């Protein structure tokens, strides 16, 4: 196991910059997720680490060694591909043994390690099957075993769960995370699924347009997003345009005054509020008047969509018990919205 360091990593295709100066340090045993919409450069970044894409600028260091221009087979990485990329003409054991063979591991040791790796992913007993005789989830685990068995310095995962159905995905997520922690694998994980990233990663890297928007833990990104893009991408957010008029007072473009943190710097900004921080009363009281547009019942939780000063906002709360006054709210009803100033977050306007 080792560390991974990216410095100013850049990839251009003609005039098109796909990855633009990515800096990242992954500590030993850490799982870092590259997260972003499709085309944000996360996969290209991963492929530069694996050596499949030549960087236009910047460096890649694995376990302290500069491998920026080393060929893929000269780097000590273990990759799990989105489509698994199992060798269809080799058995499960043959697939897992391939990397050991390439490293000149003797037959007896090879067989022992293949068996151990298959046991680790709970596939012992299927060693002599061909990949096409396995289910999607089993193939995925073979791909994991194949990458793990060689003890790579860095473990690379390219959307490894996207070909699994939803239920299996949740299971495999836990399984990969457990393996990664048990073996202390330094891991770089690419995904476009924020839930996947939030539940699995020690730290997340939010990318957009080839650049890193923010690096941090799930809590940091959710509670202190650096900009509107991150706030929108990690979880859901109500974003209201306006300006900070006085300490603790935010004025929207149409003049409504809303609570905001007292220490906010004056000037134009976007007020961001997570849906679960928004409180509301079905009567007139201290707060901001708003109109209920619709409710979306999600079982344990319910979404309430309002119009506030001409802007759409959404509140998320536990579904009230039957008979509660909130249950009788109908679209068109007037309510009062309210939140703690400190729960709102002010972000620079038009972050992009």
């Amino acid at each position: 196991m080792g560390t991974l360091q990216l410095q100013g990593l850049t990839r251009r295709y003609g005039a098109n910059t796909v990855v633009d100066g990515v800096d990242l340090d992954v500590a030993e045993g850490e799982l870092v997720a590259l997260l972003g919409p499709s085309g944000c450069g996360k996969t290209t970044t991963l492929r530069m680490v694996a050596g499949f894409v030549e960087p236009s600028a910047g460096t890649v260091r694995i376990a302290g060694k500069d491998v920026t221009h080393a060929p893929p087979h000269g780097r000590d990485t273990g990759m799990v591909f989105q489509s698994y990329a199992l060798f269809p003409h080799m058995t499960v054991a043959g697939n897992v043994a391939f990397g050991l063979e390439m490293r000149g591991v003797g037959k007896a040791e090879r067989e022992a390690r293949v068996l151990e790796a298959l046991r680790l992913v709970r596939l012992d007993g299927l060693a002599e099957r061909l990949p096409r005789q396995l289910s999607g989830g089993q193939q995925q685990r073979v791909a994991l075993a194949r990458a793990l068995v060689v003890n790579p310095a860095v473990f690379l995962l390219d959307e490894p769960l996207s070909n699994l159905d939803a239920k299996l995905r949740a299971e495999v997520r836990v399984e990969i995370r457990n393996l990664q922690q048990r073996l202390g694998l330094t891991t770089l994980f690419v995904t476009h699924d924020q839930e996947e990233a939030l539940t699995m990663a020690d730290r997340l890297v939010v990318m957009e347009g080839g650049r890193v928007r923010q690096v941090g833990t799930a809590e940091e990104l959710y509670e202190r997003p650096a900009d509107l893009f991150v706030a929108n991408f990690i979880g859901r957010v109500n974003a209201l345009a306006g300006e900070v008029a006085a300490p603790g007072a935010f004025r929207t473009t149409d003049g409504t005054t809303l609570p905001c943190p007292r220490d906010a710097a004056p000037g134009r900004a976007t007020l961001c509020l997570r849906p679960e921080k928004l409180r509301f009363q079905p009567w007139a009281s201290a707060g901001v008047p708003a109109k209920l547009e619709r409710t979306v019942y999600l079982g344990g939780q319910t979404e309430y969509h309002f119009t506030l000063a001409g802007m759409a906002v959404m509140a998320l709360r536990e579904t009230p018990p039957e008979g509660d006054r909130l249950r009788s709210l109908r679209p068109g009803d007037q309510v009062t919205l309210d939140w703690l100033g400190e729960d709102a977050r002010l972000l620079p306007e038009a972050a992009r």
Partner: protein
Amino acid sequence: MAALILPAGLLVLLLLVAPMVMLFRISLNEYSPTQLMIEALQPGNYLRALADPYYQGVMGTTMTVALSCTAICLIIGFPAAWWLARMDSKQKSLAVILTVFPLLVGNVVRSAGWMALLGRDGAINAALRGLGIISEPLQLLYTQGAVIVGIVAVVAPYMILTLSAVIEGIPRNLEEAAANLGAGPLTAFRRVVLPLAVPGVVAGSVLVFILCMNAYATPVLLGGPQFKMMAPAVYDQFVRGTNWPFGAALAFLLLMVTLVLTVLGSAVVGRRYKAQ
């Protein structure tokens, strides 16, 4: 549904199977210089062709040329096919057109070009003499080498296109996975690409081998009067010797040898790679 193959089936039956049956019947007849042939049912023509050292030599030459051409096509065709298969789709259509370009020129016209290039006073000899490398012209034309080069130039596109269609079906990330696991490009090729390309290797080789076994114009024009392969020999019997029964027997021997070698070859290659 079965009716859909009726037109093609009828065509094959009428224009291929029927003449073959007739030809086989003719091969059992007896030759007569005055009456063309006499109705008979005897294997004499086959026995004569098999026993005659001249025709043994012609069959040997044909097999040597066909096997050499197939091997050369495979060796030069595989890298080209891989390159073609891994190309961006934009440039690929152009590359495919360039690959089949040799087929746009007829066999006779192309061979005339080779003659101008390889002849005693052809471009190559002239250039070598001009450079002072040789004083006497080299015998390039009317050699087995000239025939092999000439046939390879015709059949290579078939090999390349057949192979590249199969290689295209091999996911690119298998090569990446092999590299990621520590395999250099040659090892990745040998362990991953080649075994998966075996169906293409078999199909391409069979196609090319059959074309080579039956080559006519190229051996005649580039091999010269002394050089004989089976297809021209069959033609000689029918047209020059007017010995139809013997010509028909030669044609069937050629067919049988081609068939046996093709089936044996694909079985051996197929078994060897299935074992992995």
